[in-house]
C-alpha cells in the first residue's frame, strides 16, 4: 500500500512568454504521489502534462517558462523535505538524477551518442553517490541486469546506436534508477516504441516500481497505458486537471465530459467490428483543443462540451470532490 507522500504540489501555475505575453500553460494544479504509488497524468497536446513534469525537475526553457506560483514539496531520500520552486540551480542539480529519476519519450535523444551505455549510467552514480569509476561501472552492469538487458557485460561497453529502440529505453530506465530515486518521472516512455515492446517496458516499470517502492509520475496520452500502469489518474485539459481519482473509479464512472468523450472516441479492440457493421460512426469530441493564448472564458472545455450550459462560460469551475477521492472540474458532474 502507498506510503508517505514523496511529492506534493499545491497550486502550481507555470507560465510561458509567448509573443510578449505571459500565458499559463499549467494553472493551479494540485497533486500528491506517495511512495509506491503511480499517478498517470493524461492529456492531449498542449494540455500541460509535460510542462508539469518539467516544472518539478526545474527544466523549463530558460527565460521563457517559469513557475509563477505554487509549492512543490519533495521528500528526499534522506527524509528531508525541500521546496523545489525555491531551490537554486546548484541544489536542483543534486536532486535531478539522484532523488528524482527521469525517463523521456525518445531514448535516442536522451542518450549521448559519443559515450558508452555504461559511462552514461555510471555518471550519476559517480556524481551523486561519489563512487569510483570502477564501482560505478559495476553498478551499471547490475542495473542493466535489473532492466532486463541480456549480456550486460558486453552492452555496458556499447554505444547507443548499437542498441535497438526497446533496449535503449531500458538503458535510459537504468540511468534514471541509478541513484535509487524517491520519485521517477516517466514522460511518454513508450510512445516511440512498438506495441509488443511497449508491453515489455510497461511490465518492467511496474515491476521496478514495486520492488523499489518509488513514487512514479507517468505522463501519457494513451488511456490504455494509464489503465495498465497507474493507481491514480489525473486528466488534464488546457492546463488544468479536469478530473482525478483512482483508475478503476475514473474509468468506470468518468465524472467529466472531456474524460468521457476521450474514452468514447478511442475505438476498442474487439468492439470496433460491431460498430462498423452497425454502420455507426465513432463517437467524437467536436472541434479542437483551444490555444492557450486564447482560452475561452469559464470552463475551457465548454465550447466542445455537449453538457455545456450558460453557467459554464461565466466562471472557472472548481475541482470538486465527488466522493472516494474522485474529483471533477465540472459543475454538472452529478448528471454525467
Amino acid at each position, binding site marked *: 500500500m502507498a506510503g508517505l507522500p514523496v511529492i506534493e504540489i499545491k497550486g502550481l501555475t507555470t507560465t510561458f512568454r509567448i509573443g510578449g505575453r505571459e500565458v499559463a500553460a499549467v494553472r493551479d494544479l494540485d497533486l500528491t504521489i506517495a511512495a509506491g504509488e503511480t499517478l498517470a497524468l493524461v492529456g*492531449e*497536446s498542449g494540455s500541460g502534462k509535460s510542462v508539469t513534469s518539467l516544472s518539478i525537475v526545474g527544466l523549463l526553457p530558460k527565460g521563457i517558462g517559469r513557475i509563477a506560483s505554487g509549492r512543490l514539496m519533495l521528500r528526499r531520500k534522506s527524509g528531508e523535505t525541500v521546496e523545489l520552486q525555491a531551490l537554486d540551480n546548484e541544489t536542483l542539480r543534486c536532486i535531478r538524477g539522484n532523488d528524482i529519476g527521469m525517463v523521456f519519450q525518445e531514448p535516442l535523444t536522451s542518450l549521448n551518442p559519443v559515450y558508452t551505455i555504461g559511462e552514461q549510467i555510471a555518471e550519476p552514480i559517480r556524481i551523486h553517490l561519489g563512487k569510483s569509476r570502477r564501482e560505478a561501472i559495476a553498478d551499471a552492469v547490475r542495473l542493466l541486469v535489473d532492466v532486463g538487458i541480456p549480456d550486460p557485460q558486453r552492452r555496458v561497453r556499447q554505444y547507443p546506436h548499437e542498441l*535497438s*529502440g*526497446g*533496449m535503449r529505453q531500458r538503458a535510459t530506465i537504468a540511468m534514471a534508477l541509478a541513484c535509487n530515486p524517491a520519485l521517477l518521472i516517466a514522460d511518454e516512455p513508450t510512445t516511440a516504441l*512498438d*506495441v*509488443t*515492446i*511497449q*508491453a*515489455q517496458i*510497461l*511490465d518492467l516499470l511496474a515491476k521496478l516500481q514495486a520492488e523499489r517502492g518509488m513514487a512514479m509520475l507517468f505522463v501519457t*496520452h*494513451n*488511456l*490504455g*497505458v*494509464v*489503465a*495498465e500502469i497507474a493507481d491514480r489518474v489525473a486528466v488534464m485539459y488546457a492546463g488544468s486537471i479536469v478530473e482525478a481519482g483512482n*483508475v*478503476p473509479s475514473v*474509468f468506470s464512472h468518468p465524472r467529466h465530459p472531456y474524460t468521457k*468523450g*476521450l*474514452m468514447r*472516441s*478511442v*475505438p*476498442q*479492440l*474487439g468492439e*470496433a*467490428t460491431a*460498430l*462498423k*457493421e452497425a454502420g455507426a*460512426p*465513432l*463517437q*467524437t*469530441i467536436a472541434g*479542437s*483543443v483551444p490555444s492557450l493564448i486564447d482560452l475561452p472564458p469559464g470552463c475551457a472545455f465548454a465550447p466542445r462540451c455537449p453538457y455545456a450550459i450558460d453557467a459554464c462560460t461565466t466562471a472557472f469551475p472548481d475541482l470538486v470532490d465527488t466522493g472516494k477521492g474522485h474529483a471533477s472540474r465540472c459543475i454538472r458532474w452529478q448528471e454525467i
Partner: protein
Amino acid sequence: MPEEPLLSVTHLTKHFAPVAFGRGPVVRAVEDVSFEVPRGKVVGLVGESGSGKTTIGRMAAQLIEPTSGSVRFDGVETTRLSARQLRQLHARVQYIFQDPFASLSPRMTIGEILTEGLEIQRVGTRAERAEKAVKALAAVDLPADAFSRYAHEFSGGQRQRIGIARALVLEPELIVADEPVSALDVSIQAQIINLLRDLQLRLGLTMLFIAHDLAVVEYVADTVIVLYLGRIMEIAPSRALYSSPRHPYTRALLSAVPSPDPARRGKRQILTGDIPSPADPPSGCVFRTRCPFALDACAGPVPALREVAPGHAKACIRDDLD
C-alpha cells in the same frame, strides 16, 4: 466469373541496397507478399516497425519499384510502365501521408496544393480546377476560404483533412492511406477516421489502409493483413482476425495492446526479445525467435500461407494451437 480485384500484388519483394558506400547488408523490407484489394473494399495492413507495411503501400501506389513480383492495377501490370503511363496511373491512385506537417508545402496556398495534381494531369481550365478544389474542401468539412490560406494556419486535424482533400480531388479509384491518424491527438483521430470511412462508403473508394493501431484498422478495414519482418503472418476478414486470430504473432500483437479496462490489467501475453533487423531476418519463420510455440522445424523452410477457413490464412506450421 468474379470481378477482377482493383489491385492485386503477387510475390512482391523489395530489397533496399546497402547504404554506407555499398557495404553493409541488404535490407529485406518485403519478401514474397501476395494479396488482393477488391473494388470498393478496404484492406488493412498492420505490423510493427520494419514489417514492410509502408514499403508495400508505396509499391502499391507505384511510388517505388519492387525488386521483383507484380503489381496489377485494374488488370494492368504497373511495374513496367513508361513515365507517361505512370503519370496517367497516378491520377487513379492517391496517397495520404502520416505527417500532416511534413506533407504539405509551407510555401503553397491550400488552393495551389489542391490544384497541383489536376494541373499535372491537365484536367480542365483554371476555373474548373479551382471549383474541384473547393468541392474537395467541402467534402472534408473545411470552409471554402481555406483555398487562399497556408498550411501553417491550420491545426493538425485540419491539415490532415487537407491531405485527404488533395487525395480526393483527382477522383482516384484507389487510396493508399499510410498511418493517416497516428500523428493526431486522440480526440481528433476519431473525427478523421469517421471522415475517411464516410468518404470511402459514399464514393465507393477502394483503400489500402496502413496502421499500427489495431483498433483503428478493425473499425476501417474489411480484410486485415498482419505483417512481420516483411512477410505476411496472417490474412483474414476483419471480424475473424479479431475474434479468432490463428497465428501466434497476431495473438501476441492483439494481447499487447493496453486495454482501457483496468479489470483486464496484467492479462497480457508479453513477447520476449526484440524485433530482429530486416537486414538479418531469421531463417524459416521470421517470427520463430520470439514465438513461444516455436519448434525446430520452424527454422526449416519458410512456412507457406495456408487457408484455415474461407478467406482466412496463416503462415504457421502448427495446427495444434487452435
